[in-house]
């Protein structure tokens, strides 16, 4: 294992976060706070409790997931896309590093940023609503799994994208709508039967449901199904990355 290489990539990527603190941390925290103010404090006070949980508190897991998904993807995709765009990826590809080490460096850094961001948002939420976390270990597990899985997904997007438009395409047109329609702001039990069935095809539902269970002990789908779906998606991403490096797709002619 080339640990110095993993460390070098990880620290290099993390230094980018500190250099762009405003964009990396402050911006998502402010936008999430706005959600809490609007949906939690302003509108939430007029909403009835869902499954015995105040609306303001109910949306916390969904909002955290929304931010984690988008930020994990953005961090990881930009991390690998930028060296491709500038051409500095030659150094990564000509270094004595395996695919596992490359992923540990890039995905590790992106997931770390998202994890820290998730904790900051959790603390921010505590200022606006009464929070309770019934299963803190499961919450931490979901947090880590989501950060890692969607950072891997972002890494894939970063390799796939050959321009900045494509880099934004999947997060904006697919991930954000799926997150919004995945029960961030409502329980899918509130939907008519047909739409509830349709919603079950949205993978983000399982993430949000499982994460919400770790907070309040209630969920739209079984916790094990949520966990299984998340782990399953992580393995799909891992396999896709392995395949890309094995075949050199988009990386080596």
């Amino acid at each position, binding site marked *: 294992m080339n640990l110095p290489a993993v460390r070098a990539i990880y620290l290099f990527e993390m230094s980018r976060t500190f250099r762009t603190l405003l964009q990396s941390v402050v911006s998502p925290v402010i936008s999430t706070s706005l959600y809490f103010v609007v949906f939690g404090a302003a509108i939430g006070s007029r909403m009835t409790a869902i499954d015995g949980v105040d609306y303001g508190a109910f949306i916390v897991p969904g909002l955290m997931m929304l931010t984690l998904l988008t930020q994990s993807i953005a961090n990881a995709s930009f991390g690998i896309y930028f060296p491709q765009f500038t051409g*500095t990826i030659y150094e990564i590809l000509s270094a004595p590093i395996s695919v596992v080490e490359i992923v540990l460096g890039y995905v590790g850094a992106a997931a770390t940023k998202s994890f820290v961001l998730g904790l900051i948002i959790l603390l921010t939420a505590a200022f606006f609503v009464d929070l309770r976390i019934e299963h803190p270990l499961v919450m931490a597990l979901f947090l880590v799994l989501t950060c890692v899985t969607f950072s891997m997904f972002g890494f894939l997007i970063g390799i796939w994208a050959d321009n900045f438009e494509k880099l934004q395409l999947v997060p904006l047109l697919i991930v954000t709508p799926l997150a919004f329609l995945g029960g961030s702001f409502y329980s899918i039990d509130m939907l008519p039967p047909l739409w509830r069935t349709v919603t079950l095809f949205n993978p983000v539902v399982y993430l949000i449901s499982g994460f919400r269970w770790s907070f309040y002990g209630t969920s739209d789908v079984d916790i094990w199904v949520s966990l299984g779906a998340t782990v399953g998606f992580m393995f799909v991403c891992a396999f896709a990355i392995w395949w890309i490096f094995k075949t050199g797709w988009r990386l080596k002619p």
Partner: protein
Amino acid sequence: MPPVISIAGLSKTYGTGFAALKNVDLEIRKGEILALLGPNGAGKTTLISIVCGLVRPSAGTVTVDGHDIISAFRATRALIGLVPQELTTDAFETVWATVKLSRGLFGKRRDDGFLEKLLKVLSLWDKKDTRMMHLSGGMKRRVMIAKALSHEPEILFLDEPTAGVDVELRQDMWALVRGLRERGVTIILTTHYIEEAEEMADRIGVINKGELILVQDKAELMASLGKKQLTLLLAEPLAAVPEALSRHKLDLTEDGLSLVYTYETHGERTGITSLLQDVNAASVRFRDLVTDNSSLEEIFVSLVTERA
């Protein structure tokens, strides 16, 4: 001395169907400077890229220090430093950060003292905290070299290292390359500047249309393929080459003041003696004579056009 790099039957055909390399065999000796010459698109960069792991070969094998570049990529890549042709840099990073990253990528432990020394040698130390985007082209080129040397490689690939750099930097780079060679580093450079190859290389390889036309010691190449010219500077101008000298294949310059005789350096008889006797017999008076070696550039052009 066993070769440090062995290339056998190496071919590369890109997805577009373009055959960039065709069955190339090449052995590179430890500690030598090999210059690869060839016109644009000849396959020089593809060859380097395959050895460094940036391009996948279509056929053939490459070993570095006895290790296969694919099955034992860690062992081979750790030995190699690469200065690519393009000035690809992390615009927002500092010189120090980017050089430190390079050392780490190649598995070397942090050694700030070594990096400081390296940056000082390359006249980059006072720029260490400068962001790459604020450096001039020449300075960026120096950083690229610093990155390639940051992990103390035993083999260094320089792909057009002095393209677009000023004379001072070029001289600095030549001095650096000589210093590396003295420390036993094997250097492979591609260049468009024939004078660079002539000045630096121990051996010359010529690639054209994906084929390695020849690899030879520079001195031998110059001797075996080189031509010499004897120029007689005439005391009075001539209108044409005198009939008595026609058997010597002489060229008369436009001003009629010089007779140019071209001969092979490796030939047993140069024909100079009989030429001078005939000149004397024809009463052609000359005030001086000069001889001139053909340059590597002329050899290169003749090799490439011969096979075109």
